[in-house]
């Protein structure tokens, strides 16, 4: 089933939202989530026991959707499943823009009544050309306008960004919207699509493909109904912007779990993987990796190759970092003679090593010689044998000193931020201090806010950089082929 762009636009940019059937037992989940919505919010509730609490929240309550005195763009339906068809019929009569059916208990239960009801609402929606999201889902989030799907989700301009998310899981969609902005991945639009009986993942992908606010698309997918359509839309999308796919249910037991979750049919994992690669999308295995890759792609520097220039502060981490990058499929080559000539002018080989990785602890002196850090970075930037630059800040040993001498930390952050601003090569900084996780996270935040791509481990840095390199390699290959 396909809907016009205008239909989706109305759903993702509503001016009026109505929530049907939110109640105390639910913790007024929806009305609380939508309290910061910049448009107008209505509640539809007939239970006299619920209405006072709703009105106490400052939300206008009506007894029927049809009583709302203006056009309604988006409706969240949270009524029991047997009432759902009646409420959907009201939505059709009211000519609303779109409906999220939060209500669960349909085909995912496997019970005959759930399956019958799902067929009934699907038919109802299709015949009326109603844009129905779900059922069994958390619907749409547009954080910029305060439209979200969970209370206390960060909203507004600080949470908004350029990554669109499609989730066949409400939880993963919500956590993406909560974690993403805190980890440098602002959200353009997100949708939790549940059982997808009418609009499905391909429809949302198509919408985000053409969405100017969305530069990168990420999705959590358990299974798709019309695989060929999904593949075709995916191919079209990756030619324009990166698509990161996190597949759930890659084990046999996981595939059983899928059925009771979204009732999707499982595709053999090997077929799925081949399809993703063929379409030029990026397969990730966790939400951590999904966010790492999104952050890397957002940094905007396009990798032209996979040769990494590495800087570490001490010996052991420099070895492990080299292993991590090599195992992720990157090369760690020697630098050019010209680079070594420049390095010899100031590099401290005592307590260091100047091959690649550059073990530069004594040269940078834990920030006391941050001017040398700048020189190292410039040498790697101008080295013709290097495509990607990564640095382990050595926070495991230096974080205490940075805490004692904030000016030292600030000088290092300044240099890294200035370099991140002008580097033409992808540049990642690893900040990892296992004994001081909170302080390390704070330092990462500082760097992120200053536009520096950071990672909590060399393995995650290496994988994310590798994934972005693969994407740009695919794009170049495809473009070269089409220009023949």
């Amino acid at each position, binding site marked *: 089933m396909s809907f016009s762009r205008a239909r989706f636009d109305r759903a993702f940019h509503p001016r009026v939202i109505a929530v049907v059937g939110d109640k105390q037992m639910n913790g007024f989940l929806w009305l609380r989530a939508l309290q910061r919505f910049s448009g107008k919010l209505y509640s539809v509730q007939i239970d006299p026991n619920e209405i006072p609490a709703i009105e106490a929240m400052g939300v206008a309550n009506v007894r029927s959707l049809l009583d709302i005195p203006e056009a309604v763009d988006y409706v969240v339906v949270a009524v029991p499943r047997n009432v759902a068809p009646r409420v959907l019929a009201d939505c059709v009569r009211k000519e609303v823009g779109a409906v999220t059916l939060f209500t669960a208990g349909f085909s995912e239960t496997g019970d005959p009544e759930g399956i019958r009801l799902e067929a009934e609402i699907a038919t109802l929606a299709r015949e009326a050309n109603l844009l129905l999201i779900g059922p069994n889902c958390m619907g749409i989030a547009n954080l910029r306008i305060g439209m979200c799907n969970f209370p206390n989700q960060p909203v507004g301009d600080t949470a908004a960004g350029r990554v669109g998310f499609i989730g066949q899981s409400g939880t993963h969609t919500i956590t993406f919207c909560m974690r993403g902005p805190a980890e440098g991945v602002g959200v353009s639009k997100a949708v939790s699509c549940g059982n997808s009986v009418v609009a499905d993942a391909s429809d949302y992908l198509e919408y985000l493909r053409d969405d100017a606010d969305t530069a990168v698309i990420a999705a959590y997918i358990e299974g798709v109904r*019309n695989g060929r359509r999904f593949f075709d839309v995916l191919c079209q999308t990756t030619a324009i912007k990166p698509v990161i796919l996190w597949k759930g249910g890659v084990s046999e037991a996981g595939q059983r779990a899928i059925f009771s979750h979204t009732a999707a049919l499982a595709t053999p994992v090997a*077929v799925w993987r*081949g399809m993703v690669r063929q379409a030029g999308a990026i397969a990730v295995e966790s939400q951590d990796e999904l966010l790492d890759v999104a952050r890397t792609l957002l940094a905007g520097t396009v990798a032209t190759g996979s040769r990494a220039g590495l800087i570490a502060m001490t010996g052991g981490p420099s070895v492990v970092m080299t292993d991590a990058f090599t195992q992720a499929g990157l090369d760690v080559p020697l630098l050019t003679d010209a680079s070594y000539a420049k390095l010899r002018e100031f590099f401290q080989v005592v307590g260091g090593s100047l091959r690649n990785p550059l073990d530069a602890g004594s040269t940078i002196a834990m920030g006391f010689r941050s001017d040398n850090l700048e020189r190292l970075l410039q040498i790697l930037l101008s080295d013709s044998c290097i495509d990607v630059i990564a640095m382990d800040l050595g926070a495991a040993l230096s974080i205490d000193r940075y805490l004692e001498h904030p000016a030292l930390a600030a000088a290092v952050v300044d240099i890294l931020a200035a370099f991140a601003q002008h580097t033409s090569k992808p540049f990642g900084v690893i900040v990892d201090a296992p004994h001081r996780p909170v302080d390390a996270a704070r330092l990462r935040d500082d760097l992120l806010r200053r536009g520096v791509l950071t990672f909590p481990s060399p393995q995650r840095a290496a994988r994310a950089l590798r994934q972005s390199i693969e994407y740009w390699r695919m794009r170049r290959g495809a473009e070269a082929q089409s220009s023949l």
Partner: protein
Amino acid sequence: MLAAAGVAVTPTELARTAVAAAALAERLGCPAALKIVSPDIVHKSDAGGVRLGLASPAAVAAAFDEVMRAVRARQPTAHLEGVSVQPMAPPGGVEVIVGVSVDAQFGHVIMCGLGGVLVEVLRDVAFRLIPLQPRDAREMLTELHGLPLLRGVRGRPGVDLRAVEELLLRVSQLIAQRPDIRELDLNPVLAYPDRVLTVDARALVTVER
């Protein structure tokens, strides 16, 4: 069907008697291979229906009787048409398998992997949706963990990777033209330094009613 699609296959002919089998072996060349031909038997070697490396027409004639006896003993109700006679493929090929199946969501998919006994254990295979682009065929091979076996190890020359890619593309083309083929197994395909040769194949075709 495969030959018409440009896939190099070992010449295969049907013999209904031991004498005919010996004559075919004489004509196609020895050493030869015999395989039972029956619509009721899918796993030919499990049924005792395969004999390989037969050195002479006389050995082929003797093997014909043995194969027919062995299969009849194991599957008395199977309808036996005879045996297929093929010249043995030259030694030194690396075993590759190519398969086609239909996925419930994605339709026709093609699979390529390293063949032989290890394939069952290692499941070192790569999948793509049909139709394939040349880039897809190339990437399928680079995805195989056993790629070094194809590139050549321990002084053994590498196989013609381009020929394997070409085979994948031709199979993809065949399926694009014949979507009624639900399953296709080319197993084994022998890959040599200068070519590939499909030694055995099996197809499952939907019949329109």
